[in-house]
């Protein structure tokens, strides 16, 4: 029986200071500090339980245990349950844990608004004439990539090897509807002449089928085994293969279809017949072919296009929904995702323009082609690359993605609420609400625990090992009736 697909997104944004010294670490710090200092008392992230070097295949890399995040840099937890920090040389927001794909979409959108608020607050802190540019993209077009990672709760009992084998076809082919599009090519051995435009920002950077790395030799399936919850029961599948999306429909499809396929894998519903013969070359071949006609070799010896593989997965997903239901992904959200999945595949197979309001790469390709026609611009012209970059520009009024008529799926009210308030249906509620109510009494917080100063020795750590406990239904009344953090901790029996 598939377990609930609790999920979230971590996005690293591109950052640049124009008209001033462009040190991306300093710029990221200014951006985030401007926001955090404007809000309540800053509460720092707690690194106590972080183990990014543990591999899901069952072994540990001692070297990888060195802190991956520079802990002296700003690293804050927000009242909506999110983490906002400097990671390497980028500002990054990890959404709070969400109970379904639609809720995670709300928090991804709220994260965008947090970035926009941060930009406005940071602007007066910059030297005269300097401007902070932030892009929600994954590549600088010069061979440097940064990620947009998804996380999904999966059952520990599902054998990891089977999970890898059965999710890989989806990870290689889902880009046809959740690729963000890119002008040019960054894969070694390819030129922009050969690949003037491709489907995915990220596909050029994947070199392995499976592995622990995220910055070099990136694998299609990442094996980081850091569940941030009860490790006996759960894994957190850390997905590094996706693009950051501007389209709400693309984010919803990316998270929604992956949640459904993972549930199907847990329930033995996918099977091994969609295995690709060579997943690493296939992910690039599919990205490099916006006609979607190219076929890739399957382990069976047959050849299938990315659309063929996605139709197969959708057919199985529809059967799964009929026979087993979609409770693990939320019945209503699951149905919405299934109908959107069918709509997007039909559109991609037929009249492409009908899904330009859902699919980022289609929307981007449309304006790039039209611009090139109007101004007689040849392939490789920097203006086309500038349009690509500006599609992801977070400055109000400048971002081209906000002008192309992308369909919306969440309300402005929900997005606005998600800036301050945590989801009510996961443990993020407990984290966010404690922080909102008693910011001065919280020493540190992370995904699976919080440390409280109850006004008497010692500090008290409250573990949160179950992602679906600490919801409003569980602790709402308790929080409402607690008069202080000491009172709350006493009543929790911690």
């Amino acid at each position, binding site marked *: 029986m598939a377990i609930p697909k609790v999920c979230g997104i971590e996005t690293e944004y591109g950052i640049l200071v124009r008209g001033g010294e462009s040190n991306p670490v300093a710029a990221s710090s200014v951006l985030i500090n401007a926001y955090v200092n404007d809000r309540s008392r800053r509460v720092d992230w707690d690194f106590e339980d972080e183990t990014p070097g543990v591999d899901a295949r069952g072994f540990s890399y001692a070297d990888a245990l060195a802190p991956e995040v520079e802990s002296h840099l700003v690293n804050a937890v927000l009242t909506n349950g999110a983490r906002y920090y400097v990671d390497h040389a980028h500002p990054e927001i990890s959404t709070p844990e969400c109970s379904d794909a639609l809720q995670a979409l709300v928090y991804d959108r709220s994260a965008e608004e947090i970035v926009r608020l941060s930009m406005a607050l940071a602007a007066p802190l910059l030297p005269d004439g300097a401007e902070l540019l932030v892009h929600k993209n994954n*590549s600088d077009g010069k061979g440097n990539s*940064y*990620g947009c990672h998804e996380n999904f709760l999966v059952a520990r009992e599902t054998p990891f090897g089977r999970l890898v084998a059965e999710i890989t076809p989806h990870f290689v082919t889902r880009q046809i509807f959740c690729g963000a599009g890119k002008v040019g090519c960054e894969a070694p051995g390819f030129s922009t002449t050969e690949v003037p435009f491709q489907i995915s920002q990220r596909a050029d950077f994947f070199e392995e089928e499976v592995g622990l790395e995220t910055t070099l030799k990136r694998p299609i399936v990442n094996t980081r085994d850091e569940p941030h919850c009860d490790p006996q029961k759960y894994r957190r599948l850390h997905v590094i293969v996706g693009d950051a999306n501007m389209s709400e429909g693309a984010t919803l499809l990316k998270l929604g279809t992956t949640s459904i396929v993972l549930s199907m894998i847990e329930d033995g519903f996918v099977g091994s017949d969609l295995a690709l013969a060579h997943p690493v070359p296939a992910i690039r071949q599919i990205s490099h072919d916006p006609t979607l006609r190219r076929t890739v070799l399957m382990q069976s010896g047959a050849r299938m296009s990315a659309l063929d593989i996605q139709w197969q997965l959708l057919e199985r997903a529809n059967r799964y929904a009929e026979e087993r239901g979609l409770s693990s992904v939320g019945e209503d959200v699951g149905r919405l995702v299934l109908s959107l999945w069918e*709509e997007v595949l039909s559109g991609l197979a037929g009249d492409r*323009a009908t899904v330009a309001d859902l699919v980022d790469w289609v929307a981007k390709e449309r304006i790039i082609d*039209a611009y090139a026609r109007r101004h007689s611009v040849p392939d490789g012209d*920097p*203006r086309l690359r500038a349009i690509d970059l500006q599609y992801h520009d977070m400055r109000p009024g400048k971002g081209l993605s906000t002008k192309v008529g992308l369909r919306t799926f969440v309300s402005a009210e929900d997005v606005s609420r998600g800036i301050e308030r945590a989801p009510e249906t996961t443990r993020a509620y407990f984290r966010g609400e404690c922080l909102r109510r008693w910011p001065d009494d919280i020493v540190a917080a992370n995904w699976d625990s919080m440390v409280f100063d109850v006004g008497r020795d010692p500090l008290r750590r409250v573990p949160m090992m179950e992602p679906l406990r600490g919801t409003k239904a569980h602790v709402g009344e308790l929080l409402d009736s607690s008069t202080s953090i000491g009172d709350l901790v006493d009543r929790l029996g911690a």
Partner: protein
Amino acid sequence: MAERVHKQKQTSDRSDEVGAEASATTEQGDKLRAELDDLLDEIDDVLESNAEDFVKSYIQKGGE
């Protein structure tokens, strides 16, 4: 297969009220072209004025 039947999007400008189908399609096409023209005008307005310099200066560190 049945699943591949192309789905009509239910947007407001595709409501099934009046008008012959052929002229509706032409109108729809004209509308889309006009929208795209407006969009291109807007892109001309907001696009980085010195695209070449901007693209050249856009350098990020690898992340993750």
